[in-house]
């Protein structure tokens, strides 16, 4: 069974540039999460979906970040105007609906904003 896939694996931007990250969850997983993991810190939840609906985006900087999951499968996280403070690894994870279910993480996208 294929795991969570993400692309690109790496991105390097100048401040002010835009970037999109793509995630394909494990087939059958209805819940998808986006995490930001700054260097030397634990993952921090940005947003999560159940099917196509946003369940919680309270930690998503809404002025520059957006996330969609239009068909309840793949998802895209976009940063409109990147800042140096956005430098981090962006992890996508998926799970089944049960809150006690294990979250499976993708390989992440390592973003560097110069």
């Amino acid at each position, binding site marked *: 069974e294929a795991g969570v896939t993400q692309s690109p694996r790496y991105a390097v931007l100048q401040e002010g540039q835009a970037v999109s990250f793509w995630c394909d969850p494990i087939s059958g997983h209805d819940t998808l999460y986006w995490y930001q993991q700054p260097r030397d810190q634990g993952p921090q*939840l940005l947003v999560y979906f159940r099917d196509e609906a946003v369940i919680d985006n309270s930690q998503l900087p809404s002025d520059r970040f957006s996330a969609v999951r239009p068909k309840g499968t793949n998802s895209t996280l976009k940063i409109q105007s990147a800042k140096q403070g956005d430098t981090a690894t962006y992890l996508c994870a998926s799970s089944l609906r049960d*809150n006690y279910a294990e979250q499976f993480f993708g390989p992440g996208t390592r973003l560097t904003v110069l």
Partner: protein
Amino acid sequence: GDSVTQTEGLVTLTEGLPVMLNCTYQTIYSNPFLFWYVQHLNESPRLLLKSFTDNKRTEHQGFHATLHKSSSSFHLQKSSAQLSDSALYYCAHMGYKLTFGTGTSLLVDP
């Protein structure tokens, strides 16, 4: 809100010695659900252990942990460290979301 505390940023020990990584948590939930994730270099986090049963030992891949509600703890232990155990270890609590601690880097020397 929920929080998870891992007091050690770095633990260095010699192969064969026992491992103990500390984890305590704070939550409003009466039935906490705790996890340990392991993250090897340049890899994504992977679930190592999970538990929501008070005072019951849970084991996987030589590691074990016991959830103690009385002390709000879920310490990770292993009887004998191996070189391949060198990694980042994150304790996490599931409330309405998964909240991670700051992580403990375990370095096992030969």
